[in-house]
């Protein structure tokens, strides 16, 4: 089965500092891949290039047979809104909005009617054990609750790919496990691919496969059987 998302020889530098030096990775539909590596190795940059947040200096980023890196900023924004979901370590909730409005935000940005978007958001909050917290703002939520709201927001649009960058980095182990458990369950229920950046082995254990990023290149670490599709390491990628 062909990859749903793929990086081909991606090079990305910040000023004089290289972050990625020809990184390659291909991830199949429904696969959960953990991207691991030491600090500064380029894990997050790889995730940003794959999700269209950053444009590679060289190389290509592909999603569902479409090149992402040649799209305009607006087109990439639309892909992020309609096809992707995001869960980051912190700072991704809009503090002025309530929890349910935060979850509904991608739908509202996509032009959904407010009532429908909020109904969908409430349903997701309920699935993630956040019943009754929909009217709270992010400052009134615990770290674990805020992260579950972020997860709900990431999943509410039925994303084909969920990008998670250290999603449990600011949580204790119990909250972290709850978030990871909910995330993987929701992703599998929806058939979403998950690309999970972490340096925590316990978090990586939720993935079907682990790859390691070192000095801006991707290498294979483990090869757990993918739940669906084909997983390829950088060596296997063309």
């Amino acid at each position, binding site marked *: 089965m062909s990859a749903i998302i793929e990086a081909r020889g991606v090079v990305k530098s910040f000023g004089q500092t290289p972050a990625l030096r020809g990184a390659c990775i291909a991830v199949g539909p429904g696969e959960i891949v953990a991207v691991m590596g030491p600090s500064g190795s380029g894990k997050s940059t790889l995730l940003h290039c794959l999700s269209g*947040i950053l444009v590679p200096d060289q190389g290509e980023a592909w999603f569902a047979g479409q090149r992402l890196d040649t799209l305009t900023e607006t087109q990439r*924004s639309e892909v992020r809104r309609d096809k992707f979901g995001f869960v980051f370590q912190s700072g991704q909730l809009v503090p002025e909005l309530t929890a349910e409005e935060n979850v509904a935000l991608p739908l509202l940005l996509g032009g959904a009617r407010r009532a429908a978007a909020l109904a969908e958001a409430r349903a997701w909050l309920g699935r993630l054990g956040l019943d009754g917290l929909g009217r709270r703002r992010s400052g009134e939520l615990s770290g674990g609750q805020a992260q579950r709201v972020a997860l709900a927001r990431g999943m509410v649009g039925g994303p084909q790919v969920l990008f998670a960058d250290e999603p449990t980095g600011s949580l204790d182990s119990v909250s972290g496990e709850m978030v990871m458990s909910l995330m993987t369950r929701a992703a599998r229920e929806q058939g979403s691919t998950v690309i999970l950046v972490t340096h925590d082995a316990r978090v990586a254990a939720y993935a079907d496969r682990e790859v390691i990023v070192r000095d801006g290149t991707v290498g294979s670490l483990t090869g757990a059987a993918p739940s669906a599709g084909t997983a390829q390491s950088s060596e296997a990628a063309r």
Partner: protein
Amino acid sequence: MIRLGLRLAVSGGREAVVRLVIVAIAVGIGVGLLLTAVSAANAVNTQNDRYAWLDTSASSPSQTGSGGASAPLRLLLTTDEFGGQTIYRADVAATGPDSPVPPGIPQDPGPGQYYISPALSALLRNAPADELADRYPGHQTGLIGQAGLPSPDSLVIVVGRSAAQMSHLPGATEVTSFNTTPPGSNGGVNRGDGLGAKGLDLVLSVVALALLLPVLIFIGTATRLSAARREQRFAAMRLVGATPRQISLIAAVESAVAAAAGVAIGFGLFFVLRVPLAAIPFTSQPFFPAELSLSLPDILAVAVGVPAAAAVVARLALRRVNISPLGVTRRVTPAPPRAWRVLPLLAGLADLGFFAVHGEPASNSGQVLAFTTGFALIMIGLVIAGPWLTMTGARVLARRASRASTLIAARRLADDPRAAFRAVSGLVLALFIFTVAAALIATQDTKKVTPVDGATAGNTLIDQFLTITDGGSATGSAPPPPATVLTRLRKIPGVQGVVEFQADPGLTITNPQLQIQGFPAAVVSCAQLAGVPGLGRCPAGAAAAKVPASLTDIGGGNLAEFTWPAADVPARRLDSLPLASLDVATNGSQPAIEQARTVLENAYPAGTGSPQTLGEDTAAANGADNAFQQLADVVILTSLAIAGCTLAVSVAGGLADRKRPFSLLRLTGARLGMLRRVIVLESAVPLLAVAAVAIGTGFAASAMYATMEMRLSLVSPGAAYYILTSAGIVLALVLILATFPMLRRITGPETARTE
């Protein structure tokens, strides 16, 4: 998206509402000041226009215009004085039913009637009749309306006369319409009333610039409150797929909502404060409240322009976030300002320098354009050059820093000098404006009329009949005073003596100390002069002396110390000579001066003008300058106030945006004192660095302006300037210190936990 933007702006929780309210209030204050400045400019123009009819003469430009009446009006316009205030008097006699009628009254008064301004009416009621009311024959038939009055405090009277009476008043003319050209306009008749159109255009252009830029900076600063927080929010939205366009729209809606609320507050403030503002004598005369008005274009420009400008500013401010949804976590250090930023400032100085060397443009509009361009370039140039100067100062500071606070402040300044300069930009502009105004006023003061020294001379009331023409010759005289007049004058309590200056054509006098050479002379009886020692004395044994024919046209000096040269005029001839002036020495009390003036005006109803003391004459000569100084004071105080508001809002906003890093620094052991030093240094370095440039530039620009427009060398302003400048800078530092309680509160440990 508009709905989402509105939702974020108006119901985004307590913090969002507080931010909206603060921005709206700040914009409201700015808009209120802007509207006041615009309406004050309109009011100054209207006030100046209202002086036009008081300048009507047979040669007034509008006389030949269409609409002239077939039956002319016999008219004599004179000025009078009471207690140092000018009274405008029009004696009129209609020659037919369609004779022109002065503005503000329904019809020309008949003989024995007069229309009077409300202020003069009140004065007539309160002052003793022999000091004022006895000057005006007849009775009051009505009040002069606003259309005929430059100011609510104007003292104006329109006295009805018969045609026969008018024929006996020298100087009366026939007019078919009233002048509508304001004083000082090209072709207009300028008696020195109002501000003069040429000066007015120039002054109002500079005033508009001087007020507009600080106000715009203030509004810009206010709309950027919590910008960092907003950028975080927008970056989070970009992450989940908001397009740059959607973010722009939301930002524009948010800013426009706050600005629109601010505009509403500003209009409210303006209308509430309009009446008290009108009472402030911006031009040394208060305005009618209704004249502090706004035209439809003014209203539309502010009501639409400010929210639109706020939306544009918001759009521009978001450029960095639009580049990447990771704007929060991967903030790129802005490119450092380049040295080209000083070019507009240098261009402004070059503009003024060019005209200082090659002479000002010939036309009035050319001069306005040249000066406005030069000053505008300098003021805009200061704002553009400020970040570069700040960065340069910060780099020097960073190289020499030995304390943590200095290093943090210097590095932060060097990292983003634009933000640091923005906080003090208003104050820097205010200092430039203050320096220019103070230096030019000090220079202008040097050409003020030097008063004639000596208390007795200053309190001597002079009814002048002989006038000195531009060519330096003498013209005009009056018949000798009846004995009854002299008796009445001498009987007034406080009158010390009366002396007649007799005109003797061809006689001249030279006196270097009084700056006169070949000046027309009059002859005075030594017996009379002995009774008025303040006006000098005769040489021993002389019967008559030669004195300047007009004491109001000579330089300063203590007249009491002069011994005038003897005049070889026999006593019999002296009595037959016509009168050059009748001078009444008083003790300086208002009743004595006003009673004597009343007697003189009734005895000589159509002299060359109202009898004036030498002190009043000096004050009148300097009156126009006082109006300009008053306007300059208002501009200085207003721009300093706006600048103070900008600084306070900017420092407080900067603190709010950095509460997380500061609270983290405190958590890691940094003492509050160290953070305070960082805050002070961050504001003080750009303030002092650019203030020095602003003050230096202000003096340079003033010197060039003084050379070309005033034809004077620049004079250093007095101690008040230096004290006020220092006070302004100290006040700025105090405003920074005033944010310290906020620093303690927002950098507490709970901030690090919840942010």
